[in-house]
C-alpha cells in the first residue's frame, strides 16, 4: 500500500522534475567552471524539452488509466528517450546536452554569457526548491492521513 502511495499521483512527476533539475545544475555549473576555457561552447539542457516530455508521459498515463489498462494516475510514469534525455530503468536521468550557438564569440573562441549563466543558475535553484517544497507538502498530507490529525 505504501508502495502505491509513493508511486502514484504527483510524486513521480515531482521526482522526475527533481532529477532533471539536478542534472541541469551539473551542466550549468560546468558552464560557469569553463567560463575562461578557450574554444569552449556552453552546454544547455532544454527545460521546454523536458517539460513537453513530462506532459506527454502524464497524458499517456492518464489515457491508459481511462482506457482501463492499469489504474490511471496510480501507474508509474513512463518516459521515452528524447534527443536530450535518457531515463534509465531505475528512474535516473542521463543527459545529452546540446551546444546552442548563441551570443558572440570572444577572442578565446568561447561564447560565454555570464549574466545568462547566473540567471539560469538562479532559476534552476528556484525550480529545485519549489519541487522539494511541493514534495514536502505531499508528504505532510500523507502524514496527516496516517496520524489522523493535522
Amino acid at each position, binding site marked *: 500500500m505504501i508502495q502505491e502511495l509513493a508511486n502514484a499521483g504527483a510524486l513521480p512527476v515531482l521526482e522526475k522534475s527533481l532529477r532533471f533539475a*539536478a542534472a541541469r545544475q551539473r551542466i550549468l*555549473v*560546468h558552464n*560557469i567552471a569553463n567560463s575562461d576555457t*578557450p574554444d569552449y561552447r556552453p552546454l544547455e539542457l532544454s527545460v521546454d524539452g523536458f517539460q513537453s516530455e513530462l506532459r506527454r508521459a502524464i497524458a499517456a498515463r492518464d489515457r491508459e488509466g481511462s482506457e482501463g489498462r492499469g489504474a490511471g494516475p496510480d501507474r508509474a510514469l513512463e518516459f521515452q528517450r528524447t534527443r536530450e534525455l535518457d531515463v534509465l530503468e531505475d528512474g535516473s536521468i542521463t543527459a545529452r546536452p546540446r551546444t546552442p550557438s548563441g551570443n558572440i564569440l570572444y577572442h578565446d573562441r568561447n561564447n560565454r554569457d555570464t549574466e545568462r549563466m547566473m540567471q539560469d543558475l538562479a532559476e534552476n*535553484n528556484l525550480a529545485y526548491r519549489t519541487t522539494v517544497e511541493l514534495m514536502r507538502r505531499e508528504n505532510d498530507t500523507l502524514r496527516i492521513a496516517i496520524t489522523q490529525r493535522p
Partner: protein
Amino acid sequence: MYGSLDISTSGMIAQRDRMTAISANIANRNSVMPDGTPYRARRVHFAPGDPTATSKQARQWGVHVSQVEIDQSPLNMRHDPSSPFAMRSGLHQGYVLESNVNPVVEQVNAIQAARAYEANAVAAESSKQMAAQALRLLVG
C-alpha cells in the same frame, strides 16, 4: 548534487592556479633567470574536463589547467648602460633586456580570475543550498 560541487571546486582550483601565475608574473617583473635571461610571463591555459576525478563519468565534467605557457612575446628594453646586463655592442648598445610582464595586463587578468572564482563560489553555494533543501525532506 555532489557532482555539481566537484565541478565548481575544479573551477575554483583552476582560477586559483591562474591567480598564482599572475602573482608570480607581477612579483618577478624585475627578475633575471639563473641563465641571465629576463623572466618571461607565464600564461595559464584551461581545458574542459577534470583528469584528477576518480570516475570516468566525472572526468568529463569540470575544468583543469591544461598547460602553463611561457610567453614568447618580445622582451622590453630599458636604457641603462651602467648595468652589468647591458648590451655591449650592436643596435641596442647600452640597453638592458627586461621581462615581458605587462602590469596592466596582469591586473586585468587578476580581476577576471577573481570574478570567475567568485562565480564558481556562487555556483557552489547554489548547489549546496539545493542539497540542503533535499535533506529537509528527511526532517519531519
